[in-house]
């Protein structure tokens, strides 16, 4: 089983994700330069956080035209696992692999803090090791995390269980105060229709070890490994 972490010019969480996957979760992992094409041999691909192409024009808008993205698109279409974290999520939105778009945080601030998240769907390949309704803590660090989509798109996401993570307070309530960026319906993470593409603004790689202040993010990678292991057996 092999994970690939795409490195765009301006990615800055690539090494952290690599470490979380290889050294913490224990899976084989390789970096993929954004100019490469073809993803043969990879079982899962991660688009890490950072500021690909300096976030010029719009976050993710230029990165989604990197040569590797045509392969990522094909990879996702085949049903393989694709995870986009923060800037990676923004790239997935711009690439049309997930619906909606990101707006600047409504508070006009770069928000860098720990947030509480409620697991809305533990039935995905990325969250199977969490419990329904479990409240977990993960850090966020972004300027454009204000998730936006048409009402009908939001309704469809809710109906089909594709809202996977929501910003909540410590007791698990999705209040306005618990929403760090103005995201529609406190949405922090969504999956694709087929469930194999997951985008989230929080950084699971930054909370995969106790020394980092929390381990709640580790299970994202372990869930993916579990899913790939089961896939290999069937």
């Amino acid at each position, binding site marked *: 089983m092999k994970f690939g972490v795409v490195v765009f010019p301006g990615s800055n969480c690539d090494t952290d994700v690599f470490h979380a996957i290889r050294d913490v979760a224990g899976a084989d992992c390789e970096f993929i330069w954004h100019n490469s094409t073809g993803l043969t041999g990879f079982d899962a691909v991660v688009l890490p956080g950072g500021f690909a192409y300096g976030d010029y024009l719009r976050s993710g808008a230029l990165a989604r035209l990197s040569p590797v993205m045509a392969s990522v698109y094909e990879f996702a279409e085949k049903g393989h696992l694709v995870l986009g974290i923060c800037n990676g999520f923004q790239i997935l939105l711009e690439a049309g692999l997930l619906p909606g*778009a990101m707006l600047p*945080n*409504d508070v006009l601030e770069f928000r860098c803090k720990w947030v509480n998240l409620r697991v809305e769907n533990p039935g995905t390949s990325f969250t199977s090791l969490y419990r329904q309704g479990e409240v977990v803590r993960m850090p966020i660090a972004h300027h454009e995390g204000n998730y936006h989509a048409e009402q009908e798109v939001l309704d469809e996401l809710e109906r089909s269980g594709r809202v996977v993570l929501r910003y909540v307070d410590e007791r698990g309530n999705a209040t306005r105060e618990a929403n760090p960026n103005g995201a529609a319906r406190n949405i922090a993470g969504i999956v694709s229709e087929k469930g194999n593409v997951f985008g989230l603004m929080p950084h699971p790689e930054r909370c995969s070890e106790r020394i980092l202040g929390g381990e709640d993010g580790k299970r994202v990678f372990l869930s993916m490994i579990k899913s790939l292991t089961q896939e290999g057996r069937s």
Partner: protein
Amino acid sequence: MKLKGTVTVALKEGIFDPQGAAVKGSLDTLGYAQVEGVRIGKDIVIKLSAASAEEAKALLDEMARKLLANPVTETYRIAVERV
């Protein structure tokens, strides 16, 4: 012919523009009580060659749809002039 196209990208109406709201606050501070709202967009100026202004406009429209504007959150308009 040589042309200059300007693609003006703006947030869709109804989408909150925090930057515009902040600027409005500062205009209020300066005493401009007449100001009812501020929205901030961007101009993307593109020099190009095309057979006609119409052709340039069609090309710019394609560029806007493919890259320059995000249809989920933004609208755009295009102006073309000869240089």
